[in-house]
């Protein structure tokens, strides 16, 4: 194995880790030890890649290209720009967090941790692959461990939840696959970058016009159909309302460690796909659907916030809140579809919105994962209870817990000074000039979010102490220590967002230049 940090070796690390855990993890301690070691190794690799990465350039770096299946025009082509790198960092950060949250899992620990590592490999591959063939391979590879994590370690309704999760994402995957197959049939190309160039030069539509009975007009319609198919795949994964119905049940039934991965990283796969794949290739088609898409984004924001408001289960609340936060990303992404020509002012607004989207993706991953972690800790103490009204007055008995979780909640709320603020701020800053109506409607979502999060704080931490929790232990030292890094990162990013912005800036500019 080539251990100099490259994207390939980074992908291989969790795979080897999974095998090692399966082979050597005869007992729980050994299994989780090995798994955590490999997770940290992946994190270190990512940081090393980060170090190698040249933030001044917005183009793809660290590329590796090898011939693979010439008959199908498949190459092994990986590479990373700022966005990929950010997502890699997020994934490799959330995985150790998720492992820590599942530290005391009882049943088949070696399989559990192996599946998490497999999932990580899928994530890393998805965020770096530039050829549809193996991008899809990793996309599916992440799906299967997720399914089994839910199916085997989930709550009482796990069978339904797992099936629902699998069916939705599978249908999405199938339409995605069909779309790219259709593209391949006409162009003979699976490479995202080449396809993007074809689309920009207009050759893509020309190729589509060669269909049997094809004309320029049918090519347009056909391209739209293909675009919709691919969009569905990503929409389910993000999710966009109305394709979100699998999500609350899945997040609620999954073991909390898995939920952290689902919300922290897997939902980003959909967004990443939208930005990296769909926008460059189907820019024209997407633009023609801009208004309905913006409506969907608004609906995602507002409806999910409202749904969160009426939920009684903490995990479900956070699940809807998660949809809500990703809705802002969608808003940002769809708003930059507006045709503005070369107007530099508008381009800078687009850049702002896109930067906001990137930041929001990272922040949401961090915050949402942390929040679910807190839910896990709470569940451990309450013996599985996690209803909104089961608790009350916890800040009296578990001060540190209440304080730290409150911090995460405020980050989620978008309080300035914490990481959540800057992303949403940039998005709204960019979207208002680009699509003012959508931005205004979406502020409703901000309001609702504030209401339900504050309500949550009040019901759980404030108020009279629920007698059954009178002796609830506070956070242990180990828990505090392990919670420290994500919380510290939240503060650090809130104060100094440049930490992330510095890496993504040129990427954003490059993308905005491309998408005119």
């Amino acid at each position, binding site marked *: 194995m080539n251990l100099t940090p490259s994207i390939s070796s980074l992908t291989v690390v969790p795979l080897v880790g999974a095998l090692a855990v399966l082979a050597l993890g005869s007992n729980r301690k050994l299994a989780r030890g090995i798994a955590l070691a490999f997770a940290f190794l992946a994190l270190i690799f990512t940081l090393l890649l980060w170090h190698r990465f040249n933030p001044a350039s917005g183009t793809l770096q660290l590329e590796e290209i090898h*011939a*693979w*299946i*010439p*008959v*199908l025009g498949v190459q092994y082509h990986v590479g990373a720009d700022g966005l990929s790198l950010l997502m890699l960092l997020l994934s490799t950060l959330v995985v150790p967090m998720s492992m820590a949250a599942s530290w005391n899992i009882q049943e*088949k620990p070696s399989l559990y941790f192996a599946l998490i590592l497999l999932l990580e490999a899928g994530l890393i591959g998805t965020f770096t692959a530039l050829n549809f*063939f*193996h991008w*899809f*391979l990793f996309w*599916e*590879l992440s799906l*299967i461990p997720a399914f*089994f994590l839910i*199916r*085997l370690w989930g709550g009482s309704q796990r*069978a339904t939840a797992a*099936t629902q999760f*699998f069916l939705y994402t*599978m249908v999405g995957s*199938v339409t995605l696959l*069909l779309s790219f*197959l259709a593209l*391949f*049939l006409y162009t003979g190309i699976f490479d995202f970058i080449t396809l993007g160039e074809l689309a920009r030069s207009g050759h893509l539509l020309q190729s589509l016009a060669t269909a*049997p009975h094809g004309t320029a007009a049918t090519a347009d319609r056909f391209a739209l159909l293909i675009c919709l198919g691919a969009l569905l795949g990503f929409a389910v994964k993000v999710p966009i309302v109305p394709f979100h119905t699998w999500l609350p049940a899945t997040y609620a039934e999954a073991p909390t460690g898995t939920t952290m991965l689902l919300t922290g990283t897997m939902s980003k796969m959909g967004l990443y796909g939208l930005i990296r794949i769909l926008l460059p290739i189907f820019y024209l088609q997407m633009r023609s659907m801009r208004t309905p898409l913006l409506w969907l984004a608004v609906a995602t924001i507002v409806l999910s916030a409202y749904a969160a408001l009426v939920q009684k289960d903490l995990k479900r609340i956070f699940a809807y809140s998660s949809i809500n936060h990703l809705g802002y990303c969608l808003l940002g992404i769809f708003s930059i579809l507006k045709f503005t020509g070369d107007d530099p002012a508008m381009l800078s607004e687009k850049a702002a919105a896109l930067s906001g989207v990137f930041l929001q993706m990272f922040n949401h991953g961090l915050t949402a994962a942390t929040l679910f972690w807190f839910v896990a800790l709470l569940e451990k103490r309450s013996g599985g209870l996690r209803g909104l009204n089961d608790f009350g007055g916890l800040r009296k008995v578990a001060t540190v817990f209440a304080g730290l979780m409150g911090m995460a909640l405020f980050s989620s709320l978008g309080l300035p000074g914490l990481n959540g603020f800057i992303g949403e701020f940039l998005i709204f800053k960019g979207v208002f000039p680009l699509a003012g109506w959508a931005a205004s409607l979406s502020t409703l979502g901000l309001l609702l979010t504030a209401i339900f999060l504050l309500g949550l704080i009040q019901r759980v931490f404030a108020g009279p102490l629920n007698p059954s929790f009178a002796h609830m232990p506070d956070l242990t030292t180990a828990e505090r220590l392990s919670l420290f890094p994500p919380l510290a990162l939240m503060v650090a990013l809130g104060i100094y967002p440049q930490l992330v912005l510095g890496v993504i800036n040129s990427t954003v500019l490059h993308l905005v230049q491309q998408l005119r």
Partner: protein
Amino acid sequence: MLAWTIYISFCAVFVLLLLPNRMVRTARSVALLSAIAAFAVTLAAFWQHRSGELQTITRVPWVASLGLEYHLAADGISLTLLLLTGIVAIAGVLFSWNITHRVSEFFAFYLALIGGVYGVFLSFDLLLLFIFYEIAIIPKYFLIAIWGSTRREYAAMKLALYSFIGSAMVLIGLIAAYVASGARTMDLSQLAQFPFTVHFQMWVFPLVFVGFAILAGMWPFHTWAPTGHVAAPTAASMLLAGVVMKLGAYGCLRVAMALFPRGLDAWGFHLLGFGSWRDVFALMAVIGIVYGALVALVQKDFKFVIGYSSVSHMGFVLLGLMTLQQIGIDGAVLQMFSHGILAGLLFAVVGRMVYDRTHTRELAQLQTMQLSKVLPFAAATFVIASMASIGLPGFSGFVAELQVLIGTWHAYPRFTLLAGLGIVIGIAYTWRVMQVVFFGEPATNQPANVAPLPPITMPERIGTTLLVATSVLIGLYPQLLLRIIVPALHSPLFDGLWKGSQQ
């Protein structure tokens, strides 16, 4: 050197026949060693055989007065299928480790079948090919009739008769070609160059094609396949689905299509919307894909699900052949390999890991057994196998079916959708059976009848690893096989096919 695959297998048959019945261990070892030796020979040839083009192994006159030759040769397609045979044969022996009834006879029939299969894939004299093809029929009958389960005698007889009727059709076609060419030769490449009249090809092609396709499980001649697979002992189902069905598909490509390419041309008129035999067979293949999948969806017997899934997956092979596109036929050959491995794996799980332990294949009964807890290894294997079988990327099935679909798209755009539908139904039935068998919940608050079952043995683990590793290897790096398949399809043997397809 490759000819030794045949000789090793038949030598082992004789050794086993002479072995006293009680020497069980020796019998197993002989079988395993010969399977491994044959595979090793194939592997060595595979490494030397870089280009995939036709290489003659042996060529001596056989019945000189009739122009028959003992002519063995191999190209990329043969090699691919030889590798498949070797792998499945080894795995089959490993999964038959628990056979205790008439052991040496079992392995003798088993290896006779394997030897016949090797022979078919290596023969380039048509009569020789046909002889090996028929040699493979009889052991199948006895393997099922003696060591089988559910309705074994019926299934065995059905299988034997279907195969024999198919081969009778092939024989007529071969004799007709032999006589019509007047060249007094049965050499494949020479006959392939002979310009048979279009009229002649038009009736001989369907005869020979259907004759072979019966064994490949083409709808509506597939009915032997599910019953045969179900009744057969594990190793025999693995071979049946894994290798024997490939004999049929191989024959379709190597004999029917190579000899009578003009038989695929348009008739010049339309009947019920069909314009050529190619249309007819493509439609049958598509029906097979969808029908097999639909029937698999409603089965109550675990093994029947897998049996019908074989019909469905073999439909892709035939469809790929009928595309007459380079990529479609590539895909068909790759799918033969892929399905061989995967069907072997699935039948190993169903027959050996589950049925031999639980003694039931009823889905309703298996549902209450919580097999994922009792037999985690079997569950994991089945999950992997079904993932591979539904065509998940990273496994061999994906690349193969993808190529077939691409080929179909160019040839029959509408059928692509139907085949895609077949894949989706495939996901559904695989999903269903996986859920029910391995992750079924016992009826509410009934203490689950989790009887401890015998643990998975080492031979089973090795066999599973072998098959899974092969599928993943080919799934990740299909070029390994494609690099020899593609040149083989461009050999002069298939010239007629490409010429015909350009019209």
